[in-house]
């Protein structure tokens, strides 16, 4: 009886292995496992066996039934798709044709860069401040320690609306307007459009600046270096090499220009950096005591630093754009690249 069962399993498995189609598999299933199948018949004979062998034989035949069922199911599963494959193939589509839907638009590169820069300062607890683009001479110049008929005015060619109203030449007037309204501490960044009477490959009469200001008790030049280094390494990468060098702005003292090592040539000198190996990125400085006095802060109590940068310049470096005017031509072929 045990041999019969083993023999049956061997034969069934041999047949299964050589079966190639769904029909054959189904036939094997009927032949062995069907209501009148060979295994079923054998199972019924267990009653004739010796009583002490019956449980063992019962378990054995159940095990064989289970094993065969699984094998047949597996084989059927493997075969099933093959059966419909041909028919499905008839429904083949050209997957290389473009997908459907409106193509997403792009955010202007100036907005992208401006946003990225502001984010760095927001992480340091700065908030965004805005001010008018058509500005009083007072806020744009005088309150920033640039009196009328001062040579420092030559640094910024100005569009005039009236004798005392100008298109702001920098976003610095915002710092005056904020400090007039708010007591220290002040931590702001002010992005926005500025205007200068200038137009060529590297100048457009309108461009974007971000001005920043951190005023509190005990802010030092060392803090200026720390914060701006952090900022530039966030934007240009941790390994960016910087240099701080003395410069002049009427509303800061000491003043600094901050250069990064040329990201094009790595400092060996190229056309972009004018062979110097350095790229001028930021203007900054400690807020001049005169400015504090103008807004009613006591320079003996309070100190702070301000900085400003041109967004276009950074975008041009970031994306290797050589003509600043492209930003304002809004050519679709340009916009679509960002």
């Amino acid at each position, binding site marked *: 009886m045990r041999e019969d069962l083993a023999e049956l399993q061997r034969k069934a498995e041999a047949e299964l292995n050589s079966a190639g189609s769904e029909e054959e598999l189904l036939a094997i299933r009927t032949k062995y496992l069907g209501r009148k199948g060979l295994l079923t018949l054998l199972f019924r004979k267990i009653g004739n066996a010796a009583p002490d062998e019956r449980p063992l034989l019962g378990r054995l035949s159940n095990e064989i039934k289970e094993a065969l069922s699984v094998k047949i199911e597996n084989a059927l599963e493997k075969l099933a798709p093959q059966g419909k494959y041909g028919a499905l193939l008839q429904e083949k589509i050209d997957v290389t044709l473009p997908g459907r839907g409106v193509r997403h638009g792009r955010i202007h590169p100036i907005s992208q860069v401006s946003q990225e820069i502001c984010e760095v300062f927001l992480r340091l607890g700065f908030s965004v401040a805005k001010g008018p*683009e058509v500005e009083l001479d007072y806020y744009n110049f005088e309150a920033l320690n640039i009196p009328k008929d001062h040579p420092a005015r030559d640094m910024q060619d100005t*569009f005039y*609306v009236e004798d005392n109203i100008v298109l702001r030449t920098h976003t610095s007037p915002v710092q005056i307007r904020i400090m007039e309204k708010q007591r220290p501490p002040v931590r702001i960044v002010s992005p926005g459009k500025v205007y200068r009477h200038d137009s060529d490959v590297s100048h457009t009469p309108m461009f974007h600046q971000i001005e920043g200001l951190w005023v509190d008790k005990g802010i030092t030049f060392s*803090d200026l*270096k720390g*914060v701006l280094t952090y900022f530039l390494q966030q934007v240009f990468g941790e390994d960016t090499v910087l240099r701080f*060098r003395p410069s002049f702005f009427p509303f800061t003292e000491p003043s600094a220009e901050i250069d990064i090592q040329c990201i094009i040539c790595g400092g060996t000198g190229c056309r972009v950096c004018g062979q110097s190996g350095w790229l001028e990125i930021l203007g900054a400085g400690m807020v001049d005591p005169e400015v504090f006095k103008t807004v009613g802060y006591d320079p003996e109590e309070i100190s702070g630093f301000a900085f400003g940068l041109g967004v276009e310049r950074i975008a041009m470096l970031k994306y290797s754009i050589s003509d600043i005017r492209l930003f304002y031509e809004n050519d679709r072929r340009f916009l679509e690249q960002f």
Partner: protein
Amino acid sequence: MLVSLRWLRDYVDVELKPGELADRLTMAGLEVESVDEAGPEFTNVVVAKILSIKSHPGADKLSLCEVTTGDENYPVVCGAKNINVGDVVPLAQVGATIPGGYTIKSSIIRGEKSEGMLCSEDELGIGEDAAGIMILPGGLSLGEDLADALDLKDTVFDIGITPNRSDCLSVIGIAREVAAITGKKLKLPEIVFTEAEENTKDITSVDILNPNLCPRYTARIIKDVRVGPSPHWMRLRLEAVGLRAINNIVDITNFVMMEFGQPLHAFDFRFLEEGRIVVRGAQEGEEFVSLDGKERILKADTLMICDGVKPVAIGGIMGGMNSEVTDDTGTVLLESAYFNPTSIRKTSKWLGMSTDASFRFERGVDPEGVVRASNRTAQLIADLAGGKICRNCIDQYSRKIKPVENIPLRVKKVDEVLGVKVKAGEIKKILKSLGMVVNKTEDGSYLVTPPTFRVDISREIDLIEEIIRIHGYDGVPMSLPAVPERTDIKNREKTLEEKIRVILTGQGYSEVINYSFIMPESANILGLKEDDEGRKFVMIKNPLTEDQSVMRTSLVYGLLDTMRKNANAGCFDLRIFEKGKIFIAQKEGELPLEKEKIAGLITGIRYDDLWHWKELLSDFYDLKGCVENLFDGLMVRDVKFKSGTDVPLLHPGKSCGIFVDDKKIGFIGEVHPGVLEKMDLKRNAVVFELDFDFLAMHYTEEIFYREIPRFPISSRDVAFLVGKDMEGERILDLVVGESEELLEKAAIFDVYYGKGIPEGMKSTALRFTYRSSDRTLTDDEVDEAHNRIVERIAGLTGARIRGKED
């Protein structure tokens, strides 16, 4: 400013290589923008020695020389007589170029071979002597390049001098910085000269009628000058820094201006009527021909240097033709003065004349350096033009410029500002190296008196800047101030800006940025009425071009302009948006009203995927959908699109105002065909403009979750036959007005007119969706509610129900 290294070395020893010096200057605040090598105008001229001289067999005036460059010997035919065997001379080798564009070739001169040319100073362009061959000093190595051997090469630095550093607008000023940076000593030129018996004061006089504008004026008479070319060393220096050599007198005044930073002027004394100087304002409308040959009409407040009768110079800016030094000038009156910087700047601006002199005066020259510069000039004129210096310099200095003295400097404050400890000893050393007088007080602080040429220093902070500038910014450590725990509140405007960008780009719209200024004619192009607010332009007094002469009052013109530019580049399909300010002029003297707007435009095909969609043209509803999505994304509710706008640039039948809570916040519509035509646009475009400031006030980020309904919906469709003018939204409003509790939603799903619909009518089909929150509705319940609403709508609008007409 251009600075010649050769010239610089006259006053300070420079051991650094030019590149290193440039770096050091830059790091001390004198930004070197370029470093250029300058050299003589010859190549391939080397040091050679004459081995033998024989007479030329074929020519009496020529001789045959054998010269050596150490390695090789060359035969050279020479015409000069001043040479002897053993002389060391310049040899222009075969292939050499010399000034005048000559190239030296191997040649046969009257039958004798000549391999090169021996040169005079003049031929090499390095001196005036044209008479004979240049005899070189001993100690030069044979074969060495002559330019190297004689140190004829120069390096010229272009230094950007910031407006505060007028003291650096001179070679000595730069030399002083170099000395301070490198720890070398500054060597000032020694000024010594002999004065003649004759007294300047007996010959001329100076009257300053306007001492506020001219606090100090000095004059000196120098007689018997011989006007001629300047010596080579001076020309070399002037030309290196971009000044053209004119004649010795003019060149000397320029030289001293570059040397000390004090502009000077020499008048031909012959032409000074009454032989005296009067400093006064011009007469209104007075005419004057300046040295550049241009006729100037003067204003009453223009400060003029005059003789007893007429103006002879525009004070501090430019001399006049009428008193110019010429070849036959014999006696000069030398002016050295201090003018009021503001006054010079105003005049220079008004006249549109910026000269080397005005540039220095308006930034402030050293008021105490005026006489020294005059003396230095007199010395050089005596030395180089043979002048006799008359005794005594007239010095009118009625309005003394008060020098800044004893600025208190606290060492503690230095630390406080910089965040780094600079030792007291170093502070003192730095300040002294810059020419300051430093005195210690009882409390340990300092009293610092800056030199008079440092017009930028008057406060403690100015001193601190000087200290750190020389100490070096690199010497300051980096620190991060503590960021307070409470960071500022979320900025709604910035959040809105970013949300809008995400929503609009997600729908295929790209952001553009146009100039804020446009052309005034745009008001006519857009068809604005005479009283339209859009005509209240903020006008720019000094625009770059007429096209950019007023500030925009709407973003639409810029978008249309972008569309035109793209069309010109062959791109007719656009979805764009812009966020920016518009400007409405207010009363004179007041700032304009600035409003932030957001605007968009669509033109061309609806989808780029031609394969899927063919050429479906975009229209009003594309953009409206975009705007609806925008409101939806910002969760601004109760938005109404109401037809009948008063926006003249829009198609009157395909446009509407956009309202929230009955407040108009923008418009949307197809651009008026007339506007398109005027802008030479061939395709339709749809535009919208919205009030950003309003959105900033009204958008919300608050979300209240509502339970998802558990019971099913029942729908009923019905088509109303209505007049063609009946707007869909009116029907929907009426439905909403019924306040039917079971009605969840009503939406238009079809609008049809034409075949099968009576003339002047249309069919508007609505789908009504019914649902209850607490039970499954029975058909009877739904029918009852539905029929009631439909009948009410029909009653209110006079609509017939399609399919029920009969």
